[in-house]
């Protein structure tokens, strides 16, 4: 995140009422994000929330901050361009599992290896909601959906493991049924300097009858309550692969001291792009070189 300037706590709620179904897991995500931004004393005009397409990608409309409600799967490249143009913004990507792990999977991997200082929140409901219930990249094997009436026959993506393999420097999972835990994770994620992933188990109450609140409640536990060492990448790998009777939530991994992309970007020697003077004051070298 960018440093807060005036030290005031602002309200990030907007007058636009969310269009999500009653009971949708995304409400908890929105609340946690409101709380996080207020707690961190960020200024709404220095925060930008960038989303793709899907139910969850409507989220920017429900916040008071700058935002782009983009196209399907492209939240991260848009966020990348914005952050590189103006590193003084706090940039947050948001969307669903189809958006981030399906159509946007390539960008997901590459954005993580770049370690830009942005946060990516994925409201993972393991189904396509807005298109009325097809399988998603995180739908579990055998799950019956409109597009898989005989059950899913391909393995789901493991976002936590994928993030570890891709070099993300902060990797976490929240659960919409645990508002307090989710808010804690989100605040740590936004605070982290570098790329942070918050994968949120965010049940779709309309189209996913398998991965419901009741499905998760007895299974989820908080890593931070079990002495998990977030700096131990091998321990993180072990936990990343755990999915069944016990499903870990909390922070899996946080790398320290990895330079961000912005810290390494050579062009920043001339200052942040947005603040530079435009044009070439002295073109002598450019001209001479072309002679």
């Amino acid at each position: 995140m960018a440093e807060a300037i005036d030290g005031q706590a602002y309200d990030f709620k907007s007058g636009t009422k969310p269009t999500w179904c009653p009971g949708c897991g995304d409400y908890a995500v929105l609340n946690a994000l409101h709380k996080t931004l207020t707690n961190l004393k960020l200024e709404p005009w220095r925060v930008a929330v960038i989303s793709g397409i899907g139910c969850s990608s409507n989220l920017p409309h429900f916040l008071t901050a700058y935002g782009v409600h983009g196209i399907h799967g492209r939240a991260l490249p848009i966020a990348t361009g914005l952050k590189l143009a103006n590193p003084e913004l706090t940039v947050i990507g948001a969307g669903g599992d189809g958006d981030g792990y399906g159509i946007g999977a390539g960008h997901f991997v590459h954005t993580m290896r770049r370690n830009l200082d942005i946060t990516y929140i994925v409201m993972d409901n393991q189904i396509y909601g807005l298109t009325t219930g097809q399988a998603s990249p995180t739908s579990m094997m055998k799950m019956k959906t409109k597009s898989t009436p005989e059950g899913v026959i391909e393995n789901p993506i493991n976002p936590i493991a994928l993030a570890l393999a891709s070099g993300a420097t902060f990797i976490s999972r929240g659960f919409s049924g645990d508002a307090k835990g989710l808010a804690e994770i989100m605040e740590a994620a936004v605070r982290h300097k570098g790329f942070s992933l918050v994968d949120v188990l965010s049940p779709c109450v309309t189209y996913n009858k398998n991965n419901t609140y009741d499905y998760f409640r007895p299974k989820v536990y908080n890593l931070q309550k079990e002495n998990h060492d977030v700096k131990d990448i091998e321990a993180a790998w072990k936990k990343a692969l755990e999915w069944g009777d016990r499903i870990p939530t909390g922070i899996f991994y946080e790398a320290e001291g990895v330079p961000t992309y912005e810290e390494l970007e050579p062009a920043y020697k001339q200052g942040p792009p947005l603040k530079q003077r435009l044009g070439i004051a002295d073109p002598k070298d450019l001209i001479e070189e072309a002679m």
Partner: protein
Amino acid sequence: MRKGEISFRIGGAAGDGVASSAETLSRVCSRSGLHASTYSFYQSVIRGGHVWTQVRAGEKSLGCFGEDADVLICLNQDTADYHAKNVTENGAIIYDPNAVEVPKAELRNGVKTVEIPLLELARTFSTAQIMKNTVAIGAAVSLLNMDFDIFVSVMKSQFGAKKQDVIDANVGAAKAGHDFIMKNNISLGHSLKFTMQRRMLVTGNEAIAMGALAAGVKFHAQYPMTPSSSILHYLAAHGAKYGVVVKQSEDEIASINMAVGAGFGGVRAMTATSGGGFSLMVEGLGLAGMLEVPLVAVLAQRGGPSTGMPTKTEQGDLNLAMGAGQGDWPRGIIAPRNQQECFDATVKAFNLAEIYQTPIIVMTDLILSESYSTVETFDFNVPIIRGLRADETKPDEFKRYLVTESGVSPRSIPGQKGLVHIAGSDEHLEDGTLISDVLSGLPSSIEGRIKMHDKRMRKLKGMLKDTPGPELWGPDRADLTLVSWGATQGPAREAIERVAGEHNVKVNSLEYCYIFPFHSDETAALLKDASMTMAVEGNYTGQFARLLRAETGIGMDHHLHKYDGEPFEPRHIVRKIEEVLKLG
């Protein structure tokens, strides 16, 4: 050989250093005060195959690389086999007799065979094979009586003070070739005036990149693709010094969306690609059109469809640029006609993009993108017009998508207090509220949709006024009017001059750089009295002629379409002019 000019052709295999040797020769010509124009013929291989570069140099400005070469430098046997017979009368062929055999019986009248032990002479200075090219370049410099010191100065610029040993070896090798010609008293008997006037020598891609720098580009994202890649290379090489973030992205979808993000962030943003990458970008372009985010997208065309002919030229992507993205959104399309215009058009593109808050597409083709041409020194002191911005002192009045007469709404930049808004890809109302879900189809939304769509599309009217119409070159009244767009200008003009010199007919050239919004009124006025028209374009279906007809109702009388992958040469156009005007 034509008076006042000379063409060299250097041929070898990929990896022989043909292109770099040709660039050296081009720079020597340019620094001697000659105008220069090049064309590199190459294949999609890294080593082997057959490649050649033509360097045409002349006392007058040149619009294209010409036709047959006057001096052929054979670095391998293939070059002699393919090109020796096409060397012009009284020209010369330089080759190493220990490696290459020239089919002497096939040569045109008076062609000299200049046998130089290139490799043997080169070995004295370096073990690198490529040094034999340098010997040949030295010989060429001598054949034209150019000042050898200019070659030395080019080497110094190319390698810098740190590589004195490399400079010494090259200068020594070139001198050996130079002295060989002097000693054996070989002359072309062809004299050129060397004015020593200094000019820049740039490719279209470099001119675009320089135009972008002048215009204040601060973010460039690109995925490599021939023939657009040297834009990435140029900006990457200069990004740190001039403060441009240059991002090689994972694919073209990322490039365009990063540019959208940066443009939303308030910096001047650009991307560049060829047809395949552009095809991937179309959804992102439409996004920029909908969000009303300024950006510049360069589309350097190559032979299509699909992977097509990666190293060959074509003007086959106009329909793609015109139709990119679902739905209607206002776009500008500019197709610079030459390297100078690449610079100017790019500057203009950035201003139009910000004034109209929408994507501007700059289209070139391989022949323009990658060919060098001398240009008069670019004026980097260009106008930078940033467009309508929201008033920070009146946050209560701010509506990001305010419906205005011009179609342009006041824009705010993240970081500006009181002016937060959501830029949405869904259809939206003036304040950014989306009308695609719970408000969709309600009476107020229907009205809002129409108003918003009208607003966006009104930008085209302003853009039309802000861009120049086509240029009619040549006599006002003519027996035939050639109609072309982009880089066809050079060969078309040369063809016209040649026809005028040989026949008692008048031909003129109607040339388009600003393609869209289309200048219908000017076009109709200019073509009203045309005796006969002929579209000249590098594609199969006549994409530009079709656009012109769609916009004006005017059909072309004749068409010259070229899609063999090779650029237009003046003689191709001359032949067709003679055919349609029934000249014997």
